[in-house]
């Protein structure tokens, strides 16, 4: 049926679903159909509700497939990111220079500021913070439209008001997946951590971890430059690379990884990537907030990889035990792994 043969303004939901050009528009397989139906909607015809109903039903019956051309565009963007010769964004691994310490200092400083400059300024500069408990995740939309998904037992804070053109600063403890919006004006986005480094980006996607002695960035999209302490040379990261700060030497290293593995928790996966048993156990402890003990003699240095469902610690520990031929027992609140 040709696009102009029928009066689409009189279509019912079923008429739309029986029209090949409507279905082609939904599948994103025909640019002409996409252009036609996009323009048609812009005119706000009276039967737009029927059109929406047809769209909903199509989505359900097709299994919510993303449109072809949109997905192809996404692939092209991924390819362009990898090949981009544009100036890299800056990731700066440096000790924190947060302007606000949390806790009592904020309160004390706030009172002084309030006395001096008044409540409005204070309100704008208040630190807002978000926390997750063990086993909890939370997605936060920041004032610039960027989003952060916090993993278990993590905290993110930032100033309430972000003036346009001013730097975007947030502080992370724990682990988060960042999807940073690239603004028209190149305004840096900085993630500070309490003890180790600062990540500075313009618009990109990455997973950052900042737990006691684990400081790491894994890049999913975009391009970043990583600079460590003065003694460590700068690195350029492309998507699929990981940069890590060695807690002992303060040196920065990078390697190729599978970036999706590091945000597996977004999809309820606990991902082990070439880790030893002690490292895996630490990951489990951080994720679930439990105490796992093991005889260091049994640990060994064998490295393994795997993906486990992020459901309950018992299942994860059982699988780890079976894999390493260990027994697992419960000791009060703690778990014990031994031969």
């Amino acid at each position: 049926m040709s696009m102009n043969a029928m009066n689409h303004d009189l279509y019912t939901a079923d008429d739309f679903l029986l029209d090949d050009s409507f279905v082609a528009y939904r599948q994103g397989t025909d640019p002409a159909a996409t252009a036609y139906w996009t323009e048609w909607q812009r005119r706000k015809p009276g039967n737009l509700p029927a059109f929406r109903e047809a769209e909903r039903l199509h989505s359900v019956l097709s299994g919510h497939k993303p449109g072809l051309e949109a997905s192809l565009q996404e692939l092209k963007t991924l390819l362009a990111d990898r090949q981009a010769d544009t100036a890299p964004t800056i990731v700066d691994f440096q000790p924190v220079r947060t302007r606000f310490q949390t806790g009592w200092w904020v309160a004390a400083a706030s009172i002084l500021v309030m006395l001096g400059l008044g409540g409005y300024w204070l309100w704008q500069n208040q630190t807002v913070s978000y926390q997750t408990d063990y086993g909890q995740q939370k997605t936060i939309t920041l004032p610039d439209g960027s989003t952060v998904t916090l993993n278990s037992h993590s905290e993110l804070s930032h100033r309430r008001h972000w003036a346009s053109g001013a730097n975007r600063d947030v502080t992370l403890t724990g682990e988060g997946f960042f999807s940073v919006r690239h603004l028209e004006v190149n305004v840096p986005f900085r993630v500070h951590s309490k003890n180790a480094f600062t990540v500075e980006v313009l618009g990109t996607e990455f997973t950052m971890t900042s737990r006691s002695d684990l400081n790491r960035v894994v890049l999913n999209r975009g391009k970043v430059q990583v600079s460590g302490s003065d003694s460590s040379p700068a690195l350029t990261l492309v998507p699929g690379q990981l940069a890590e700060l060695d807690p002992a030497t303060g040196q920065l290293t990078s390697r190729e990884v599978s970036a999706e593995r590091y945000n597996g928790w977004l999809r309820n996966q606990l991902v082990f990537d070439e880790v030893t048993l002690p490292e895996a156990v630490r990951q489990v402890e951080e994720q679930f907030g439990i105490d796992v003990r093991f005889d260091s003699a049994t640990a060994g240095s064998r490295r393994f990889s795997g993906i486990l469902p992020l459901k309950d610690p018992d299942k994860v520990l059982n699988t780890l035990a079976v894999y390493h031929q260990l027994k697992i027992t419960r000791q009060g609140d703690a778990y014990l792994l031994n031969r």
Partner: protein
Amino acid sequence: MPSPVPEIPPSLWEGLRNRDDSSLSELYRLTYNDLLNFGIYFGFSATVAKDAINQVFLELWERGEKLPVVSNVRSYLITALRRKLLKDFNREDRFTELTGREPGYEPPYEEVIVQAQEQQHLQQTLQQALSQLTPRQRQLIELRFFRNQGNEEIAEATGMNINTVYNTLSSALKLLRQTLNRKEKRSLVPLWLLIFSLLGL
């Protein structure tokens, strides 16, 4: 239900090995829906399947001339996607990954499409709605909305008259919408009652 698989010209694979941009796009367009369906049948959501497909194509592109010469491009892509899904997107226990699904078993469309709904209430309603259809109606709904076939293609594939295709689909859609909408409206009634009673106060 065997679906007609679009023919993949060998020149497209050759083009991909030479990093030809239009060959990449063409190959993607020809295989996208087929690969998505495979991902969905394999138990993943369409979004996850799409992400994995893009990763597969990204890696193929980067390997360029290092790619092997392949005679069956479709099965090569399916294998690559399967591996990618298991390796990087798997929600199941990786150590027992192969125990879950038996190869070769294809669940029926209605089972797959119900599983693909993320909202639980929609899963139940859709299951009920689909169960009211005749096997013929279900087959045509699958061909049209899941296998992406046009009305005339369906007529050709099933040997049905084009008008019969229209009428069968039309009555199927009517039934589906009735069941799906009835559920929606019923759940809205208490809300309206609540609003009216609040206005009354």
